[in-house]
């Protein structure tokens, strides 16, 4: 080797490489289509609109009194005083309140629709502990009348999740709450997918009763760890294929695995975890699990005991999605406190979210947030409406990974807006007008903007 002078060595190597490429032509690269069911959502007819003289909660922690909101080209253009724009529709909102569109991070509308019928019970592929291969969007019945009810409550965006019988329930999908006769017509463009995971009682009950693992909480953890270990191997195989291909090698692509595609998406940081997980000790373990396998543990849903580990959640950047007051229906819901959301919210860098998991309360997520605010303030907190609104707007958007698009009335965000007839944290509050991307999708006083599901149409 020492005999060769450097220039000869370089020449020799380059000759042999060229020879290799010439003799082994690369096959076409195997690419996985990550968006095979793309959104066909179209913004509904919209106009430049100015809402005048309202009490505005921006979702960025601000309250502006007697303020205007300008919606231009489907975006929030400005929030401020005495705004004007050519040809704008003017809405006098004196005495009314304006907030960002409400976002529910946990819904089963469309997959467990109304009427409740066996034929439409499509929310949980409860056939094996890991069904990461299923996608909730493939179950959505867009005609669920619940979507219309939710819109009347100011819901502009919602995540539809699979149920919680499985350790890995499958992918959730984020929808715009517009009427459509296809799922794709509702799909939120470019929203990341979510992966539903579930801790605790449900998986161990559902599978344990069938004498299939998991039957215990330790079985749950073992099931997650085995799946993530496999996913890490799968990712490694694909990464190696990608690297080899980039180097010009004609290596063989790994066998496609739809289940592992989803877990790999999490490891790649493209899919967010949405983890049904009530209890403090389990959430703490799920955070350690995520560190063991190199992903982020995402949002804990139904996090009844989040208040016990509020520091841990904030330090690790986890959102917690919570009810104000549901409890007692099972052991893991026994330690509810009405101030849970407020305790989580009180920590720096926290992400407290109020969610519904209900076709009924999704219609009043504003009131659900209000209950927390008032109960917390009775017990030593000082939470204002401008803060509480973030639990159902900005923080929810962050949980879903769409905070750059919606969740606040910041300039350039989608014009997702609700006009309320009064303080939205009153039991008497009603959403009067709802806008998505600047288009009016609901008007309490105008039949023209009250959608009716195909199911409800023409019923006697």
């Amino acid at each position: 080797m020492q005999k060769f002078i450097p220039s000869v060595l370089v020449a020799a190597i380059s000759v042999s490489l060229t020879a290799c490429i010439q003799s082994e032509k690369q096959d076409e690269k195997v690419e996985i289509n990550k968006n095979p069911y793309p959104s066909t959502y179209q913004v509904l007819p919209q106009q430049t609109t100015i809402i005048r003289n309202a009490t505005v909660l921006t979702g960025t922690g601000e309250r502006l009194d007697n303020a205007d909101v300008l919606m231009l080209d489907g975006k929030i253009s400005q929030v401020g005083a005495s705004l004007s724009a050519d040809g704008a529709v003017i809405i006098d909102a004196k005495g009314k309140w304006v907030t960002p569109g409400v976002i529910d991070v946990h819904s089963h509308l469309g997959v467990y629709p109304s009427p409740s019928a066996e034929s439409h019970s499509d929310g949980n592929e409860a056939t094996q502990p890991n069904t990461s291969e299923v996608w909730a969007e493939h179950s959505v019945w867009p005609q669920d009348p619940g979507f219309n009810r939710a819109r009347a409550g100011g819901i502009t965006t919602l995540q539809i999740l699979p149920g919680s019988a499985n350790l890995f329930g499958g992918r959730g999908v984020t929808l715009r709450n517009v009427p459509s006769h296809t799922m794709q017509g509702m799909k939120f463009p470019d929203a990341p997918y979510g992966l539903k995971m579930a801790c605790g009682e449900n998986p161990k009950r559902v599978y344990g009763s069938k004498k299939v693992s998991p039957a215990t909480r330790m079985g749950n953890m073992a099931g997650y760890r085995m799946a993530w270990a496999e996913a890490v191997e799968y990712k490694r195989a694909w990464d190696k294929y990608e690297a080899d291909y980039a180097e010009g090698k004609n290596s063989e692509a790994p066998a496609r695995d739809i289940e592992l595609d989803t877990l790999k998406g999490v490891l790649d940081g493209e899919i967010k975890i949405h983890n049904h997980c009530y209890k403090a000790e389990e959430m703490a373990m799920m955070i350690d699990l995520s560190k063991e396998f190199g992903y982020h543990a995402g949002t804990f849903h139904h996090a009844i005991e989040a208040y016990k580990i509020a520091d841990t959640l904030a330090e690790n950047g986890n959102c917690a999605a919570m009810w104000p007051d549901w409890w007692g229906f099972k052991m893991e819901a026994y330690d509810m406190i009405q101030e849970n959301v407020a305790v989580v919210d009180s920590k720096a860098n926290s992400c407290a979210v109020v969610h519904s998991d209900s076709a009924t309360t999704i219609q009043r997520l504003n009131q659900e947030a209000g209950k927390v605010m008032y109960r917390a303030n009775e017990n030593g907190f000082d939470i204002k409406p401008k803060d509480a609104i973030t639990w159902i707007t900005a923080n929810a958007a962050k949980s879903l990974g769409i905070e750059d698009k919606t969740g606040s009335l910041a300039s350039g965000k989608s014009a997702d807006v609700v006009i309320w007839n009064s303080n939205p944290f009153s039991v008497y509050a009603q959403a009067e007008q709802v806008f998505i991307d600047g288009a009016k999708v609901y008007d309490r006083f105008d039949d023209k903007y009250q959608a009716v599901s195909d199911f409800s149409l023409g019923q006697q």
Partner: protein
Amino acid sequence: MKLFKASLLTLALTSTASAYAESIAVTNATIHTMTEQGVLTNATVVFDEGVITAINPETVNADTSIDAGGKTLTPGFIGSMNQLGLVEVSAVSSTRDSSEKKANITFDASAAFNPKSTVIPYTRKGGITTNISVPRGGDDMFKGQAFFADLSGEFDSIRMTDVAVIVDLGAKRKGSRAMEIQKLRHKLQDTKEALSKAKKDKKDAKKPKRADQAINALLAGEKPMIAYVDRATDILALLALKKEFSLDLVIAGAGDAVSVADEIAQAEVPVIMGAINNLPSFDALHRTLASASTLFDAGVNVAYSVSGDTHNLYMLRFDAGISVANGVSKENALKAVTANVADAFNIDAGRIAVGKKADLVLWSGDPFELSTRVEQMWIDGVETSTLSRQDALRDRYTAETNMPRAYVK
């Protein structure tokens, strides 16, 4: 534990008051009496030995006087159609005593009532002082008998058992709904005939079976029959039965009652419904948030119950508020959680009047508002706390401590 039959209730009213009870006057209150007296402002109510003794007396004579500062005083709200005290944790089977496979019309679950359930103090946060628990029953269409209890948390809190017969009709998972309504009709007919035969032929009269005694009580109009049903045709069928057998009928659920609101009003049948149930089922295609308003407008006496898990019972006042936002007057909504519930079950509660039990709630504001809380509550004349286990947990986890939280008590 004292069990009271209806006829003993009056006696019970005077005998149960605790020896330590003192006379209390609440002055300067806005009192919603739920009686012909209506709403009284700057008013005074005096109670002693558990019973209201005076409203606006010329001179106030009481051991303790509480200035309400103009705030609202209402009768304690009444929960109904739930399993309060019968279920501690819904998914823990050993804590559930509300159903039994072989339960029939005689099933009285009150012997299982646990006044120490954690659900009770939490429910008091909603201004609820008394409750009608109903059994969930078993395979039979008759689920059993309802009972009436206060939320004092004391061992003697059951006020009355066998308050009403609960029957579940309408949509069925297996078989036809027609069979159930037919069975009910036959049961009423057969029992009525047997009763009339027994009257004629007194010599051979045997004591009727317990189940038949319960049907006899229905035929005599001695207690209400609460029928769960949603579809309009089922409601009409029940109205016909009421007419034929002179039943004291109450419709519960009542999803599509709006479709036959006038018929229900004409038959003078009360309706117990979830005020916020607005999602369609095939039996209830027409329910909306305005359903309660439509029924009230038609002249129906509406009472509200909270649907779903009993642990959510404290939300009753919010449901009433939502009904107000959807067209019900505040006074009617207040009736729907007090007097109208009492009337539907024929129980002595839900009104502020001399001689009534002192079940009272003083509110920090509008009783239906999210921002309002219960300031003071009296059950049977005794001030009762609204603190619950949830408060203890909150305090533990918001306390400053350098020790494990298990040491914070």
